[in-house]
């Protein structure tokens, strides 16, 4: 199946993110990405599927410069960031939010401090009162105002992800990258996180890339899906189209 066969929703605006022929190899012969191509339009939710080790996380880490690509183009907001230095990357990173698999909350800081940490560094003109208000407002948007003075060790898995999301949202990113947002959560909490992803997209008009193994989350959140296999895009399209694909391997994700 060619990627375009099942592609239903063609982005009608210039892509916010565009990856062209991306290659990444670790060590001598661990070829993780072998020429990945995909793009995401403004306001679109793209879900990336694939088996463990297929290179999904590496691909989105290339978007924020956490992993340097060996070859190819990573165009973010129209700029190829592959050869960017730290300062140039930081300008891009301020416009992108990244939700890590386990939230990646700073263990030594309370929830309040976790949220204040990036905000106070990048918005130095804000008063303590304004910072506090922004923290409360952001926590409210993820439904966790009561956890403001808790330490990360006191939070459940779902709460950690919500706080991680709040910490990302406080910088008002235009693009959100979710690395397995529902992994390790029960069905109800997974559903809540998926709903939260949708409500954030609606409220802030963000563009999102969601890496997941959770098909319920994919069904709910995806405008379009891509499936990675051995470091290349094997299939691309809407949930409904891929579910009825002629390729048994593609269909196996949906069964």
């Amino acid at each position: 199946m060619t990627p375009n066969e099942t592609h239903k929703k063609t982005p009608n605006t210039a892509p916010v993110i565009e990856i062209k022929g991306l290659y990444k190899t670790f060590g001598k012969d661990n070829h993780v990405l072998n020429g990945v191509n995909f793009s995401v339009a403004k306001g679109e939710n793209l879900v990336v599927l694939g088996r463990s080790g297929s290179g999904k996380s590496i691909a989105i880490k290339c978007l924020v410069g956490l992993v340097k690509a060996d070859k190819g183009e990573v165009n973010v907001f129209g700029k190829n960031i592959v050869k960017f230095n730290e300062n140039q990357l930081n300008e891009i990173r301020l416009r992108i939010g990244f939700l890590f698999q386990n939230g990646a909350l700073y263990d030594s800081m309370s929830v309040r401090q976790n949220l204040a940490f990036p905000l106070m560094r990048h918005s130095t003109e804000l008063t303590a009162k304004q910072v506090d208000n922004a923290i409360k407002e952001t926590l409210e948007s993820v439904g966790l105002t009561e956890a403001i003075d808790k330490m990360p060790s006191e939070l459940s898995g779902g709460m950690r992800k919500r706080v991680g999301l709040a910490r990302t949202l406080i910088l008002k990113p235009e693009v959100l990258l979710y690395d397995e947002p529902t992994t390790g959560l029960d069905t109800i909490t997974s559903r809540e996180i998926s709903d939260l992803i949708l409500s954030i997209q609606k409220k802030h008009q963000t563009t999102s890339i969601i890496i997941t193994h959770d098909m319920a989350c994919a069904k709910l959140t995806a405008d379009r899906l891509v499936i990675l296999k051995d470091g290349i895009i094997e299939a691309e399209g809407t949930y409904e189209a891929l579910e009825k694909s002629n390729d048994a391997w593609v269909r196996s994700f949906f069964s």
Partner: protein
Amino acid sequence: MVIYLKSIFNDAGNIILFTARFFKEVTKPPFETKEFIRQCYEIGYKSLPLVAITGFIMGLVLTLQSRPTLADFGAESWLPGMVALSLIREIAPVVTALICAGKISSGIGAELGSMKVTEQIDAMEVSAINPYKYLVVTRILAATLMVPLLVVFADGIGISGGYMGVNIHSDINIVRYISQVFESLDFVDIIPATIKTFFFGFFIGMIGCYKGFTAANGTESVGKAANSAVVLASLSIFIIDMLAVQITDIFF
């Protein structure tokens, strides 16, 4: 064998690059003053009880062990001076640095290692915050400044331990004891011994940070980072001490 040697040279090269980055970043604003002060508190203030206990025992035991030999020569009156010289020139700096390698270097290695494994360092980086500056520069600076202060503190406590040791077998006035201590000391004894402690502190902080910051993924690597930080920091303390003594010997 070749692979082992390759990994040693690889590590040495990476440590040099890691250290070079420290000197590049330390002078560039913004300065993380708040975190630096917090680290001084964590590294310096929280190590005081441990350093105090070991310092006191060092002074006491050294006095008790040296006394019989000096008594054989009828030179017991040299005891305060000898204990003070041994403590200040060698024992207090090295033992305190080793204690700090165990407490501080392993602590930093484990803390940064677990931050690395749980993607907290990556989270900092994607928030456009320089994790090297926030986590590494502050810890290395704090260790470089706090270890010498802890050594000076251990010197003082060790000398007071010596006073107790002397008084177990004889009776000496505190004023006389202190005056005997200072009579035997010169700036040449204190300054080189203090200068080397800055290097001890720098290496304790730097090795802990390097091992933690470069920890591989997986919880196992956190333990490895803490363990190898202690081993390498302790080894580097002995090497620096050997070099410092040789250099002091040439100049003084």
